[in-house]
């Protein structure tokens, strides 16, 4: 019974997030491929915006998934996101200043990595607080 429920959950996740993830990957690939073939200019801005609709769709899909979750899970996710956002913002702003002062060289992918690490850490901490996996 529990295996069936777990399978249904994975199936639901695949239905909810599969198409939007594929759309995101395709749009990033297209934007990357087009940008390599064009000269710098205002059209670059339009090309850079190609993945935007898929990101907006992804945000809506994630919100829809969150609303369908059980109330404690909703709280865990919202608390983890709030903590992760606050901490990652502090770290990224600090790194940006270090970059401006020439003390450290950082790139945009580092920000994504920091956000991911903060989110994973916050998830762990919040789940520990509510004993969510027990």
């Amino acid at each position, binding site marked *: 019974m529990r295996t069936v429920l777990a399978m249904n959950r994975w199936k639901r996740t695949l239905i909810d997030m599969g198409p939007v993830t594929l759309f995101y990957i395709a749009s990033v690939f297209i934007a990357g491929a087009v940008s390599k073939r064009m000269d710098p200019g205002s059209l670059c801005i339009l090309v850079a915006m190609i993945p935007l609709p898929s990101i907006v769709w992804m945000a809506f899909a994630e919100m829809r998934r969150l609303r369908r979750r059980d*109330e*404690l*899970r909703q709280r865990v996710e919202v608390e983890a996101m709030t903590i992760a956002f606050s901490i990652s913002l502090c770290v990224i702003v600090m790194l940006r200043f270090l970059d401006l002062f020439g003390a450290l060289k950082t790139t945009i992918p580092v920000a994504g990595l920091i956000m991911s690490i903060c989110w994973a850490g916050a998830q762990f901490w919040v789940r520990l607080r*509510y*004993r969510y*996996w*027990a």
Partner: protein
Amino acid sequence: MNNRIRELRGNQGWSQAELADRLDVSRQTVNAIETGKYDPSLPLAFAIARLFGETIETLFNPDA
């Protein structure tokens, strides 16, 4: 906040998973409520009280 959910569930002979199914929440939520780590929303508190044939006041003790 203390509550009597574990005791009442035991009296019915239900597991946490069975109670979770009846309340349409996850087993983790039932566990967190029973251990006092999480206070349920008002609709869930009413659903729990209705399921056990009790009132919210007799189920939950905010002073403890």
